[in-house]
């Protein structure tokens, strides 16, 4: 594992009572890579991302960003932007005030002008003054992304970002992430919908039942004449019962 690993997951294990969500998971991601994080529902993707972001405490092992635990980062909003759920908003607060409160709480010199910038970036500048309860799912997705972008972070972590988006929304997201990655940033995006991922990422981490199933580059797969879907299904196949 190089020192410049943006994400380093080492022997990560997380149990919730008797349930093992993630077991001895290890992988690391280098700077300026766009990585898909795949696995069936319940494979442990969300738990892994939450451990990475300091929201859940690992039972064993560690999950580091930029070589540190998330909570030990100086001004984390400047390093990492993350969206975990599609609807983490107070319905009675305006989109703009949601972002302003986050900007203040981040304590990282994120001013009001930056709030306007990210609203513009996600095409919500005209709707920023409306309460979130009036937003469509697509608008909420974009507002969540705007929150992650406030600190102009080097790493973007998105959990199932295309869930519930219509085709135009998925297209917008893909275009946006492509541009973000082309600027030399690092992206980790989880999904259980392969089609969303295949056109966007250069490599995939596949986990199944809390364990690493594969970590492959998409061009290696195509060299072998395999599609992502074939590889995925093979790796995560359940024995017929």
């Amino acid at each position, binding site marked *: 594992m190089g020192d410049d690993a943006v994400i380093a997951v080492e022997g990560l294990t997380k149990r919730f009572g008797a349930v093992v969500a993630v077991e001895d998971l290890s992988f690391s991601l280098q700077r300026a890579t766009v990585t898909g994080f795949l696995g069936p529902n319940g494979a442990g993707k969300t738990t892994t991302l939450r451990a990475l972001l300091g929201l859940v405490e690992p039972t064993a092992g560690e999950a580091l960003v930029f070589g540190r635990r998330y909570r030990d980062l100086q001004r984390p909003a400047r390093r990492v932007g993350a969206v975990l759920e599609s609807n983490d908003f107070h319905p009675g607060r305006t989109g703009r005030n949601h972002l302003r409160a986050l900007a*203040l709480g981040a304590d990282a010199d994120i001013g009001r002008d930056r709030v306007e910038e990210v609203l513009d970036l996600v095409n919500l500048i005209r709707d920023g003054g409306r309460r979130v309860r009036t937003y469509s799912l697509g608008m909420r997705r974009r507002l969540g992304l705007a929150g992650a972008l406030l600190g102009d972070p080097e790493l973007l972590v998105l959990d199932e970002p295309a869930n519930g988006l219509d085709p135009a929304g998925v297209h917008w997201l893909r275009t946006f992430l492509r541009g973000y990655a082309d600027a030399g940033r690092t992206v980790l995006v989880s999904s259980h919908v392969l089609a969303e991922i295949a056109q966007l990422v250069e490599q995939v981490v596949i986990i199944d039942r809390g364990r690493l199933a594969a970590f492959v580059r998409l061009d290696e797969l195509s060299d072998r004449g395999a599609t992502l879907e074939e590889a995925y299904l093979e790796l995560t196949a359940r024995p017929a019962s």
Partner: protein
Amino acid sequence: MIAQLRAELLKQRSTRTDLGLFAALLGLVLLALILHGFGLRAEELARRNNQLMILGRGEFLAALFAALLGATSITAEIRHGTIRPTCLATPRRGRVLAAKVGVSGVIGAGLGLAASGLAAAAGTVALNSRGIHIQLDRGDYLLLIAGGGSAAALWAAVGVGIGAVVRNQVAALVGIAAWLLFFEGLLGGDLGDAGRFAPGALGMAASGQEPGTLVAPGVGVALLAVYAIVAVAAGCLATTRRDVA
């Protein structure tokens, strides 16, 4: 820490929750004062202790609403999921909670001062209009209002602690309301002397109610502060130790 305080202040200003609580509180205070001031018999209203108790309804209701406001400041974040982006922006969760205690405490004090002031004014008008001699002096009025502000500020902190431990919004709010409105009232008699040290009774003591029965106002504030510290410490422990789901 200033940043987190400003963030929390914006959060509380930018929804209608606080304004709604404030309006409901003042409405209830007026209603309580009208019911007591015009519903009770004149000879009852003439007694000094009853006058203190009636004018002290402002403190009692403000304590309740401040606790609800404090609890809501954290349970609403959990309910709506904003706790996740909040913790990403401020991974030191103790700071998030401390900011909630600070802002809720200040707003709670505002609720307490406003409700106590309104109760004192409305009660005085009601008693005067019935020709009942008011046995309270300037010191009593000052204590009603200042004690009401202090008690509500401390109850707001208690509310933040309870909200952080309980997490479920409905359970926290119902629990607080049930404690103040029912349990302390019902159990107060059964607890005997110990009832004076229940947190609701300490708030009432802080505003000078039931002198002789309750503890002295300064003691009431100090002991209520101990409750607040314990509740916030428990909330802090719960918030930093538990996973954010």
